[in-house]
């Protein structure tokens, strides 16, 4: 066995209790780091997956990014014009089907027209404000997972009756409505119509399930009092992560407001980023605290071994050999601690993954855990680096020791 490794192993072995405490510190740091990373990434992936599945990846609405210029703005070089009444724009996307056809030629994914409307739903004396979405059942299945989220009925059930509606299951529950119940929809435009409940869906998002209903495109157009209206084109891209770039191009080509799921959920995504920064800060702090233990043990060993260091140097061992001995000791503690930490981290992940709980926001009743070698590698790398740094300072001190100072003091 290599001399430095032999000496380092002997030092570490002969201080089993102190070494184990230092290893336990590193193991705890690594274990909890792995658990935190697995938990955070798992919940993030689960959240994004649910979000991406539930929402259209891109929503093209009839709003404009920038307000249109008034004719007076273009006719006069005035600094400011007062008292103008804005042009009344006809609602909806112009030539929606032609626009969809044009987009289909290059957008990698599926598109469908829809109508977004707001209404008051009445049933059995109960009123609720809801979002009504007019859809084409055949193409809807290509842009959302509504079809597989149906609890009762199918998307095709919308063709079963005049003015059919599919309700979120929580909304139906709050209203007391069941299949074949007739509910009344009233809009701010004084449109009232009676719709028959033909199905119920459960998206997993409480807000959606409590406040949404789907009707046929033409039914929503009646509610909006405008035949042929399409005020939103919904897009599902083949690669959800490419939605932002595609949305920008659509916006530039059509002039309409085109919002990717990333943009619409920007607040949530930035919250996730902040959460990740917090997580890595906490993980770093845990490992930093663990490295104090390593520093402590290496420092103690070098202090206890001052005489031995002097002996070795007087015999002719070079400073870098002495430094290497103590760095190897730190590495042994870091590596062994990290390996114990792997087991601890894995067991913590398994334990957390098996816990059942209820969340008010979604259906998931288990912690989403992401198992990745990256977490293990990252925690180990940080543990080893912090152990080496913790070991370097006392090792350097040991290497700089002048043997004659110790020998003179001992004799």
């Amino acid at each position, binding site marked *: 066995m290599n*001399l430095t490794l*032999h000496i380092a192993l*002997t*030092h570490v072995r*002969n201080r089993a209790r102190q070494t184990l405490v230092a290893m336990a510190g590193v193991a705890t740091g690594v274990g909890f780091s792995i658990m935190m990373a697995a938990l955070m990434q798992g919940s993030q992936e689960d959240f994004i997956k649910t979000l991406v599945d539930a929402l259209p990846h891109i929503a093209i609405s009839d709003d404009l990014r920038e307000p249109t210029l008034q004719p007076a703005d273009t006719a006069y070089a005035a600094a400011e014009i007062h008292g103008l009444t804005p042009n009344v724009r006809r609602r909806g996307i112009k030539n929606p089907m032609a626009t969809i056809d044009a987009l289909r030629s290059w957008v990698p994914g599926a598109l469908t027209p829809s109508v977004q409307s707001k209404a008051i739903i009445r049933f059995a004396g109960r009123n609720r404000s809801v979002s009504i979405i007019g859809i084409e059942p055949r193409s809807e299945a290509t842009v959302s997972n509504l079809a597989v989220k149906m609890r009762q009925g199918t998307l095709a059930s919308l063709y079963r009756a005049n003015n059919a509606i599919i309700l979120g299951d929580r909304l139906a529950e709050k209203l007391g409505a069941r299949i074949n119940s007739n509910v009344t929809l009233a809009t701010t435009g004084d449109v009232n119509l009676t719709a028959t409940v033909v199905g119920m869906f459960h998206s997993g998002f409480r807000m959606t399930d409590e406040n949404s209903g789907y009707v046929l495109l033409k039914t929503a157009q009646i509610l909006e009092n405008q035949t042929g209206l399409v005020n939103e084109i919904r897009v599902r891209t083949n690669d959800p992560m490419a939605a932002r770039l595609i949305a920008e191009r659509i916006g530039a080509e059509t002039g309409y407001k085109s919002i990717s799921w990333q943009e619409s959920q920007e607040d949530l995504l930035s919250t996730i980023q902040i959460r990740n920064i917090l997580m890595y800060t906490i993980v770093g702090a845990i490992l930093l605290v663990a490295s104090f233990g390593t520093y402590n043990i290496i420092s103690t060993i070098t202090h206890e071994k001052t*005489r*031995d260091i*002097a*002996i*070795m*140097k*007087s*015999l*002719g*061992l*070079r*400073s*870098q*050999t002495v430094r290497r001995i103590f760095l190897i000791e730190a590495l042994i503690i870091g590596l062994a601690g990290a390996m114990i930490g792997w087991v601890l981290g894995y067991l913590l992940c398994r334990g957390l993954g098996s816990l059942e709980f209820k969340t008010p926001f979604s259906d998931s009743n288990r912690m989403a855990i992401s198992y990745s070698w990256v977490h293990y590698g990252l925690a180990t790398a940080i543990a080893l680096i912090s152990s080496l740094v913790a070991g370097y300072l006392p090792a350097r001190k040991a290497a700089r020791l002048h*043997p*004659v100072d110790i*020998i*003179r003091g*001992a*004799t």
Partner: protein
Amino acid sequence: MSGRDGMRAPLIEARHVSRVLRETVPVTLVRDITLAIGEREFVAITGPSGSGKSSLLYLLGLLDLPSEGEVLIEGRSTAHMDDDERAAVRLARLGFVFQFHFLLPEFTITENVALPMRALGRLTEAEITARAEELLASLGLADHRAKTPDGLSGGQRQRVAVARALANDPLVILADEPTGNLDSKSTAQVFAILRDLVDQHGKTVVAVTHDLNLAARMDRRIEIVDGAIASDLRAEPA
């Protein structure tokens, strides 16, 4: 190695060596010492406590740096050597025996003796172990080779220290009060070993001692007083 006149250079040579500790009040440990120690010499460095005899030994053994002057090993100046170069000379050319044996307590005596050889790296592990055991056996410690220093008497530990000093087959053994901590029987044993190293194995031994009886039995006696050489006497050939 040969000098300019064709004579072999001394194994260790000190030229106007002084050592001053730069403290609040500077302390002079060694004052302008010039001496040369050749092959097969058995040298005693004597003097009262605090006279600077151990300090001189540390300077000759490259454990300490002179404030002035220079130390030459086999004719080669060590004045411009860095720590690692001096360590390399100590490892390969010099052997040390200290008053308090200075063995590593967590290692067996075989491992202690093997340590300088392993650091030098010229022999295989098997050769190192064989040589360590052979050295221990030659000093009457064959039965103790698997023990740690704690399991040995003071005299036995000092013999292990001698074995370790001989590990890399140096030409010079520097001993600082090698018998200072031993009873008379062990003192006699250790002295006999050192004498044997000179007479039978051609080594040079430089030993600091305050035991004048012991010093009287050595071939050359250098007396240090107040950090300077007071006398340098050679025994008459028997």
